[in-house]
């Protein structure tokens, strides 16, 4: 198996605070990786660096062998690295279908294809219907995004990342704010959609049940460093992880 995403020697500090300290990760194609750690441990910073929101102070990130460290978020997105957000980032004044249509539109108008960009969009199109089905959002199709319940907003946020056809999907706390009985349903749906399209997934998660159930590799962050890396059972059992992360959580 080959690594699709490689982070080498990432450092990032905000003034006196070190948010990333010599991070080295190689993510294999088609794997599902969980990122765990307490608040401020550097998980979101890592995602922000991979997706171009933050630039690392030193170190490089490469995707399929290409250095993407200096690229802007949209260029990284274009290459196939897409993300969801802790706080769902939706188009609140639009309907659910229109939200997804934005993504369809961006895909259609990719690059400098002006003719495609100028093409009309009479009906939402098949791509939107497919995503709506995948995420079981059909019932919300014409509801305004700003007025949706939180769990549905979370789902739509992930769907928006999926609609632009990612190769790697980074999910930032996909189940935060989702009720306990909905969280598995949500994750099942996401994982099913991901497996159908063959996408590599990294997700930040506080819920160890979710981590255990859905990942095949776990990275544990502590004060900007990776303190454990391996199969879920191994990592969650490691002494340091139990002390610094799980202990703190329970």
């Amino acid at each position, binding site marked *: 198996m080959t690594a699709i995403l490689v982070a080498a020697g990432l450092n990032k500090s905000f003034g006196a605070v070190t948010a990333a300290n010599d991070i080295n990760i190689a993510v294999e194609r088609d794997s599902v990786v969980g990122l765990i750690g307490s608040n401020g441990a550097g998980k979101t910073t890592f995602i922000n660096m991979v*997706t171009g929101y933050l630039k690392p102070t030193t170190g490089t990130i490469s995707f399929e062998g290409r250095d993407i460290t200096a690229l*802007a*978020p*949209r260029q990284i*997105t*274009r290459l196939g690295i*897409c*993300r969801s957000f802790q706080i769902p*980032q*939706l*188009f*609140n*004044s*639009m309907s659910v279908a*229109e939200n997804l*249509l*934005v*993504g*369809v*539109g*961006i*895909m*259609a*108008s*990719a690059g400098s294809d002006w003719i*495609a*960009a*100028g*093409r*009309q*969009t009479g009906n939402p199109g098949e791509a939107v219907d497919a995503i709506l089905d995948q995420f079981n959002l059909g019932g919300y199709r014409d509801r305004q995004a700003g007025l949706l319940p939180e769990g549905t907003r979370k789902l739509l946020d992930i769907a*928006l*990342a999926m*609609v*632009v056809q990612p190769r790697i999907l980074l999910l930032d706390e996909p189940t935060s704010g989702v009720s306990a009985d909905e969280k598995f349903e949500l994750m099942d749906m996401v994982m099913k959609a991901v497996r159908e399209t063959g996408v590599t997934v990294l997700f930040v998660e506080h819920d160890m049940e979710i981590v255990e159930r859905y990942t095949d590799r776990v990275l544990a962050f502590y004060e900007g460093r990776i303190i454990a890396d391996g199969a879920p059972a191994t990592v969650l059992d490691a002494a340091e992880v139990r002390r610094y992360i799980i202990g703190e959580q329970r």
Partner: protein
Amino acid sequence: MKLDRTSVALLAVGAVLIAVGPVLPKWGVSLLNVSLCYGIVVLGMMLMMRTGLVSFGHGLYYCIGAYAGGLLDHYLKLPDMLLMVAGGALSAAVVATILGFLLAKYRDIFFAMLSLAFSMILYGLLTKSASLGSTDGFNVAAKSIAGVAVNGEGRQFAAYALTVALAAVCALLLNLYLRSHRGRLAEAIRDNELRVEYMGASVRNIVHLHYIMAATFAGIGGAMMSINIGHIDPEMTYWPQSGEFVFIGILSGTGSVFAPMLGALLFETIRSFAYEYSPNTWQMVLGITMLIVIVFLPGGLWSLFRQRRAP
């Protein structure tokens, strides 16, 4: 290409307006001329507003369009209506392309204020240019349309027909654009530009593009206004003029490309009647109208029609 209802309606209204031109009262023609020119400018404001940006200096392009047309007459002795409009559109687009590299980074009040600064700099420059008549400006007389000489009644009708046609075509083009993939991104940017970036589109490029489009509309409106009015002066880029465009934009709402035209017509009507029937307090009449619109019609005039259609 299949046209939607709005486009068909635009073409129909445009055709009817041109057809009834000869029987309309003259002041009705003048009112429509001025309103539609404003309407064309406000089409651009509407596109910017949809993108989430309001310019307090859009008079800059209105003025550039008018002066470009005027200079064609003044210096190059090419007083052809179509040439003047094309010149106005092109000059506005060129300046907007340059300034857009800067302005596309700006949002909210900072976008509004930097636009204002640019428009006031042009005001200062024009005020200093004695050869262009300083604050008095100069007269413009279009004498042909597409090379065909016109004068008297023919000239008036040609200008009117061109104004209506331009308004219809500009609105039609904007309507088509807004319904296109890229056009839809305007509202997405207004809602959440971070997400747009993270879906792989360059917000800056789109804002820049929309800025150029809005400026081009303003240039066309300004050039056409100079043809209709026959006089241009730096007042066109002074801040109250830009404020008026913002007001008409908010009065109209961003619901449909028809809205700027109707909004401009209503504004011109109120303003003109207030000037005549309440010459000492017309500012108050306008101010109160503005407040009423903002308080009771937050979605603009067009929201009236929208609510009516919705179940």
